[in-house]
């Protein structure tokens, strides 16, 4: 039985870092379900949010340790779904004609989706939510003929309230030892 873990990795921001991070997954043959990188609240620190499905927490911990061992990785956390608040964003491109003829308004309201643009030939919907929610809209729009679909990786906020800067101060102290 696999569990979804969200791994949050805080690193220096430089060329090649993503390769170093992903090589820790590759050598253990752990598939990356989704991956998002962005800046964090601390200047110069980049943040990776990586979703994996793994059976044993002990193996997730080993993976996190291997990541944290990398010289330019500051801190690694891993969480199950209960410990984070998370979202994904999905965009759907459908033929405008089909939408106009169908029950577009009802679908949009039911799914709390937004229209980003309406062009003569196509319309783009946006939906933010959990995987199941963006998937549900996908299925609702499928009869209209989806021209293009894209879903982002997960972004997640950790529920524990310690600031990253506090961890980093601790780390800097330990590094000076």
């Amino acid at each position, binding site marked *: 039985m696999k569990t979804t873990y969200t791994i949050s990795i805080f690193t220096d921001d430089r060329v*090649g870092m993503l390769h170093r991070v992903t090589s820790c997954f590759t050598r253990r043959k752990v598939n990356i379900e989704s991956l998002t990188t962005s800046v964090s609240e601390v200047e110069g620190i980049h943040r990776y949010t990586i979703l994996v499905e793994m059976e044993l927490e002990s193996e997730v911990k080993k993976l996190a340790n291997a990541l*944290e061992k990398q010289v330019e990785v*500051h801190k690694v956390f891993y969480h199950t779904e209960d410990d984070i608040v998370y979202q994904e964003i999905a965009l759907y491109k459908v033929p405008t004609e089909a939408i106009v003829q169908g029950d577009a308004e009802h679908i949009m309201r039911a799914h709390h989706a937004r229209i980003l643009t309406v062009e003569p030939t196509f319309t783009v919907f946006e939906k933010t939510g959990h995987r199941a929610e963006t998937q549900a809209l996908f299925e609702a729009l499928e009869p209209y003929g989806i021209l293009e679909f894209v879903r982002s990786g997960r972004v997640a906020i950790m529920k524990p309230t310690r600031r990253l800067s506090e961890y980093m101060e601790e780390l*800097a102290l330990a*590094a000076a030892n």
Partner: protein
Amino acid sequence: MDTLIEAAQQTQQTVQKKTRMSGAEAMVRCLIEEGVDLMFGYPGGAIMPVYDELYKFQNQLEHILVRHEEGATHAAQGYARASGKVGVCIATSGPGATNLVTGIADAMIDSTPMVCITGQVPKHLLGTDAFQEVDVISVTIPVTKWSYQITEASEIPSVMAKAFYVARSGRPGPVVIDITKNAQFEELDFEYEKCHKISSYVARPAIEMEQVEAAADLINSAKRPYILFGQGVILAEAEAELKELVEKAGIPAAWTIMGLSAMPTNHPLNVGMLGMHGNYGPNVMTNECDVLIAIGMRFDDRVTGNLAKYAKQAKVIHFEIDPSEIDKNVPTELAVLGDCKEALQAILPLIKENSHVEWLNRFRECDKEEYEKVIKGETNPRDGELRMGEVIRELNDLTDGDAIVVTDVGQHQMIACRYAHFNKTRSNITSGGLGTMGFCLPAAIGAKMGAPDRTVVAVIGDGGFQMTIEELGVILQSGVNVKILILNNSFLGMVRQWQQLFFDKRYASTEMVNPDFQLIAQAYSIACKRVEERSDLAASLKEMLEHDGSFLLEVVVGKENNVFPMVPSGAGVAEIRLE
């Protein structure tokens, strides 16, 4: 006030130190600043500006021209392992760089401090499939502790300082610095400041006294405590502390092959070698002890055998500098994270004087059985073909355990590690984790250069010798004094042993038709001899050791001898076979 004056002086020094120079010169000056006086390498197009500077600085920084870049890495490893300093190697871009990969992987898994400099095509050609362009950073990411591509000369001093700090600090490892050709030609204002910390990197976790106290309690109350030590002891220079702990608490101690020589062979509490071809007692007693104290070792699968049958009865204490090793293979009762010298110094005052005579005797009982069934016949055979074990025993008699023994990989390696005697630390140099055939000859050359006052014996099989045989050219050109002892069974012996035991003697591609090693030695002007008779063995080994300069001694040993004891693959340590 003092601090202010110091700061002012430092600023002044810094100003004085700033000099305009090329990136290539800066690279060489960085090496000199880091105390490097010897490096191993092979030139080529993309690294030529640095070589031009090496020519100018040859009085301060010696460069050994290897015959293949892999040889440079193993030589740098041998140098590092013998001397305790960072090994440095240098190669050109493309094939020069990719030829380094095996040695880098070897240094990674065996925690050897090494800095590898590779040339790279000019920045504007990156990604264009230019001549001799390989993305060496991407190729080496999984096998480096750290790596960086320099594309501007101004980056050189800070990157090189970081490279040496990362390579040598904490759990040491290899660092690759790839430098584009334009950065070698460009100029910079050079000033050098050594790196002492990196904010994201904890080289030495602080020792937690709570853990130390708990460990001391566990050790003091143990009835059958057992110490396993690895290379961490050597890397932390904690040999004296280990000895004190072992003696004070009266605990039998066994070693991994990477920890070999951290404790003298003849120490009464040194019970021998762990693992697949280790000694009988150390393996069997792993499943009898009540407290297992692992110091600077990582529970490699060759040591543990089947983890499901490994020390299940024992409470495990793990002294380890690398947090990712804790609970990686064997779950611990408690871990003391940190440099093991610091940790042992902290725990020693808390350890009660003790002895465990009855417990120690159980190891000695095992020794007797192993001696009768294995060791006697291996080291003192009365007749029949020469055996590897007797060669090593004769060598011990002549060196008294004072030599550095470098080994390759396979049967001869296991035999040498099992039977060689050591009095001093940093005397056993082998490819433990990666098992790299071809390691020995270049590593022995590097070891001799790292410890010029010591006798270096390269014990090599006929297979591994031919993997880096070209490095005989380094001996010819440099005159380095290495004793090459080929244990020739005309087989890839270890694979053949497995074929015999597990593949119904189907000897697929393991028998070797070898060249005349005597003629090869002569071609390189290396004194040589071939021994086939027992009666010639001792005198020939003596001749090899006493010869003024390198010597190649080829000993023809039995073709189908096996290394025992053996923990078969997939078996538990207690299922070790004596025959």
